[in-house]
């Protein structure tokens, strides 16, 4: 409860900052038009990195606050990588030291995929696959999880990932190789044992 209260006050502070810092409505509108459409993807990254709904929501809101504030530094081009880089920084710095760096399984009993919406019966089988895939991804160690999410879920190129994580393209490739090797191990054991 204490925690929830703290979060709420944090959000209110964000709202104030956003409103008072930015006076240019045209700029804000431009920001809204190009940044808001990527909200789901930004949220997806935060959610996989932090493995916790409330923290991910806070991180995404903080990301949009920072992005708007520093919108002048955005030099055109693709905005997705820019937003991903910001949300990643937020995840690393503000919220996540304890979660992102540690590789312990999520302390939340609530599964990662709980917000998957209504499921037509015909899709139950596929849905279960999605659940187990999400679970496998969320169990990868931080930097490998990050590489896989950026590549396979958010569909970025090696160069874009390299720019975001501040590492050479070769590192991206080897992290993806490691990440997929780990996933493959989990995948194969899930196939043979059958996951719950």
């Amino acid at each position, binding site marked *: 409860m204490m925690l929830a209260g703290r979060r709420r006050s944090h959000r209110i502070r964000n709202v104030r900052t956003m409103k008072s810092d930015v006076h240019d409505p045209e700029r804000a509108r431009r920001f809204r038009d190009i940044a808001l459409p990527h909200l789901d993807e930004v949220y997806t990254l935060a959610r996989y990195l932090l493995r916790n709904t409330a923290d991910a929501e806070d991180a995404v809101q903080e990301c949009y606050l920072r992005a708007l504030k520093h919108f002048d530094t955005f030099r055109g081009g693709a905005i997705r990588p820019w937003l991903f880089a910001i949300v990643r920084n937020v995840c690393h710095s503000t919220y996540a030291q304890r979660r992102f760096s540690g590789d312990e399984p999520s302390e939340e009993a609530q599964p990662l995929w709980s917000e998957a919406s209504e499921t037509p019966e015909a899709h139950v089988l596929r849905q279960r696959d999605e659940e187990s895939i999400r679970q496998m991804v969320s169990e990868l160690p931080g930097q490998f999880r990050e590489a896989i999410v950026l590549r*396979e879920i958010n569909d970025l190129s090696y160069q874009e990932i390299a720019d975001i994580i501040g590492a050479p393209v070769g590192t991206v490739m080897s992290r993806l190789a490691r990440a997929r090797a780990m996933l493959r191990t989990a995948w194969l054991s899930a196939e043979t044992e059958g996951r719950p």
Partner: protein
Amino acid sequence: MTCEEASVLLHALIDGELDAGHAREVETHVAGCARCAAEIAQYREMRQAMRSANLRLAAPQALRSRIEAALPSSSVLAPTPTPTPTRRSLLQGFALGTVLSAVAASGAVFVVMRTAQDDQVLGDVVSAHLRSLQADHLADVLSSDQHTVKPWFNGRLDVAPPVPDLTAQGFTLLGGRLDYIDGQPVAAIVYKRRQHVINLFVAAAPNPNHTPARGEAIQGFNTQRWSDQGLRFIAISDLASDELREFHSKFEATLRAGT
């Protein structure tokens, strides 16, 4: 090339990130190495499964609202997700079923502007797209054969939408259905690239002018709109905007080639 080298490079290969020279080297190695061949097959399969699964997560509506509310211009916006027009509408145009005859007759340049009606149309398009995905009702006529899909619309609509076969261009035809945009029945032609569904809505245009395509992102979806030969087209998909642009250009090119 050793297995060790190949085991890393094969990831760049399946991601399409290798230059031709290296790609050939890896392929040559894999062709002669049963272990690496099995490995790459498994990775491809795994990658395919990941791509076809929906691993993205939707941001909670509450978060979206909170961020929208925090953006400075929000005070002038209605609480609905569709933004109200911010420019004065000179032309109430580009809405399906809207009569533009007066403007067309006057020979005025067809200026495309974002208007309230425009927003209404785009909102409808997003809803129709989402509905088609959620309700598992993508197509009334389910066929990858253009000669099955095209005639199906006969008698159901007052237009005959073109249904080009774009398989060779990387867009698979899934089928067609009737849908409603802005209160008007329209043709929805459904294509797919990888696991991304494209809904292409087609309706009668108020004039035969060709208007070049323009793209717009709305609620995370990309759209492309154009009109040609008396038909108005709106394509929507979660595909990246450049790929949707590619869809449009392939679509028009194929029609022009007379396929």
